C-alpha cells in the first residue's frame, strides 16, 4: 500500500473544492447584486459599464449576496477588532450560543443514554417509550421552541436553561437511537458466555454492553453536538434577539444586514465543525484505549 501523503490526500482535494466554491460564489454575487446597481444607475439617469458593475457588486453595503471577502472582513472586524465583552463582538455572541449548546448537549446525551439503558433492559419501556421518542422528532422545532421559552419564562426560568432545553430536545434523539442499537450490538455468543458465568445484569452491562456500544455512542454524539448548536440558535430567535448567534441572524435579517448574517452563519458553521472534531478526537482516543486495531 502507498504512503498516505498530507498534500495529495488531504490538502489538494479539499483546497480544490474550496477554490471552486469561492469562484462560484463570486460569480453568483455579481449576478445577484447587479440588478441593484443597474436600478441605481437608471434612477440617476446614467449608464453603467460592466467593469463598474463588477467592482460595485463586490462592495455593496446591503448586498443580496455578499462577496466572500466582505464576509471575511466582517468576521475579522467583529472578532479581532472588538473586545470580547462587547455586544458587537461575534466571539461574545458565539460564546452565549456555545454555552447553551454545551449545556443542552450534556443534558441531551445523558438523557439519551439513560433512556436507551431503560429501553434495552425493560420490555415495557421498549414498547411504550420508543414510539414517543420518534414522535417527538416529527414536531418541527421552530414550532415548539417559542412555546418552551414562553412556558418556562412564565414559571420564572429564563436565560440559559430554556435555550439549552431546546438543544436537549433535539440532541437526545440520535443518542437514544444510537445507544439502543449499541447496547444491543453484542453477539448472541458473547451474551451466552455471560449467562454461563451467571453474571448479573449490571455485570453484563458494564463488562459487555457498555464497551460494545462505544462506537455507536460516539457516532451519535457527533450528530447530537451539531444539532445541539442548531437547537441553541433556534432557541435564541424567539427571545427577542438579545444575544447569541441566533440573535445576530435575526437582527441581521430585520435590518437587511446580509454581511452580518453571513458572518454569523460562518461562525456557527465553524463552531459546529470544531465541536464535531472534538467529539471525533475523543472517539479516536477511546477506541485506542480499547485496543482497536490501528
Amino acid at each position, binding site marked *: 500500500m502507498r504512503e498516505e501523503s498530507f498534500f495529495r490526500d488531504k490538502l489538494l482535494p479539499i483546497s480544490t473544492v474550496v477554490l471552486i466554491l469561492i469562484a462560484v460564489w463570486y460569480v453568483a454575487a455579481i449576478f445577484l447584486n447587479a440588478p441593484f446597481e443597474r436600478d441605481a444607475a437608471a434612477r440617476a439617469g446614467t449608464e453603467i459599464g460592466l467593469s463598474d458593475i463588477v467592482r460595485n457588486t463586490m462592495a455593496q453595503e446591503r448586498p443580496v449576496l455578499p462577496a466572500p471577502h466582505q464576509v471575511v472582513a466582517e468576521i475579522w472586524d467583529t472578532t479581532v477588532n472588538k473586545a470580547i465583552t462587547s455586544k458587537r463582538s461575534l466571539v461574545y455572541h458565539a460564546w452565549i450560543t456555545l454555552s447553551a449548546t454545551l449545556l443542552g448537549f450534556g443534558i441531551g446525551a445523558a438523557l439519551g443514554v439513560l433512556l436507551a439503558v431503560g429501553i434495552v433492559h425493560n420490555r415495557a419501556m421498549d414498547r411504550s417509550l420508543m414510539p414517543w421518542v420518534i414522535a417527538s422528532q416529527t414536531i418541527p422545532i421552530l414550532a415548539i421552541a417559542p412555546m418552551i421559552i414562553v412556558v418556562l419564562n412564565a414559571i420564572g426560568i429564563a436565560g440559559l436553561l430554556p435555550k439549552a432545553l431546546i438543544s436537549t430536545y433535539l440532541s437526545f434523539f440520535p443518542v437514544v437511537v444510537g445507544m439502543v442499537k449499541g447496547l444491543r450490538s453484542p*453477539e448472541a455468543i458473547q451474551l451466552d458466555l455471560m449467562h454461563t458465568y451467571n453474571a448479573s445484569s449490571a*455485570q453484563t452491562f458494564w463488562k459487555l454492553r457498555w464497551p460494545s456500544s462505544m462506537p455507536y455512542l460516539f457516532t451519535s454524539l457527533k450528530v447530537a453536538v451539531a444539532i445541539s448548536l442548531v437547537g441553541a440558535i433556534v432557541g435564541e430567535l424567539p427571545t427577542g434577539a438579545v444575544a447569541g448567534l441566533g440573535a445576530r441572524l435575526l437582527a441581521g435579517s430585520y435590518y437587511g444586514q446580509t454581511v452580518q448574517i453571513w458572518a454569523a452563519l460562518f461562525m456557527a458553521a465553524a463552531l459546529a465543525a470544531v465541536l464535531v472534531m472534538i467529539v471525533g478526537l475523543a472517539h479516536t482516543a477511546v477506541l485506542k484505549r*480499547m485496543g482497536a486495531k490501528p
Partner: protein
Amino acid sequence: MTSNSASVVSARDLGLTFQTSDGPVNALTGVNLDVAKGDFVSFIGPSGCGKTTFLRVIADLEKPTSGSIAVNGMTPEEARRHRAYGYVFQAAALYPWRTIEKNIALPLEIMGYSKDERKARIERTLELVNLSGFGKKYPWQLSGGMQQRASIARALAFDADLLLMDEPFGALDEIVRDHLNEQLLKLWARTNKTICFVTHSIPEAVYLSTKIVVMSPRPGRVTDIIESTLPRERPLGIRETAEFLEIAHRVREGLRAGHSYDE
C-alpha cells in the same frame, strides 16, 4: 457407584422441541446418557442432530421440554449458578477491547476472585494452553488457533470440573486442529476435567474420546454410544492403528444406521 465415578451429566429420556413458524422441530428425543467423572465424551453427527442443543441444555442455555437431566446432581440452572462448567464456543468470542489476560480475567472478575488470585490463575492457565507471554496482546494480534486456545484458557480459569466444548476447532485448518487435539488431550490428562466435546469429525472424535455418542437428525437422537478401547495415552500416530480404524468404522456404521448419510 462410588463417588469417584459418579455421574457428572445424567440425562433420562430427554427431549427438546422448538416451536417454529414452520411447526414444531424435534431437536432432541429420548436421549439417555451418563457422563462419568473424568470422561472425555464426544458428540458426533451431521448438522441438525441436536449435538450442540444437548450441550446447550447441559449449560442451561436451552430448556428441555421433556424428560430430565442432572448436572453434578443438580438441575442445569443450579449447576450454572454454582458455576459448575466452563463453556468453549465455536468462535473464540474474546472481547476485542480486552487483552488476552483481561479476557481470561473476565469470568474471575465476575465471580469475585481477588486481584492476586486472578493474576496467579491467568499465569497458570496461559501456561496450560501454551500462551505464556501473550497475555498483553489483543485478540486481533493472535492467529485463529491461538484465539481459540485463549478461549479455552478462559474456560479453565475458574474451578469448574466440567468443560463443555462446542466444535471449538471447527473453524481451524487440519494441521492446527491436529496440534490442538494433541494439546487438549495433554491438558485433559493434567487437569482431570470431565469434557463434553461436540464435533463433526470422525477422526477427531475417535482420537480424543473415552466415549463417543453418535447422533442422527430428524428427529435429533442418539443412535449409538461407543466406549473407546484406546489407552488414555494417545500419540498422534495411534490414528493409523487397526484399533483406531475399527472404532472409526463403528462410528461410521452408527451414522449410517441413523440415515445420517441420506439426503
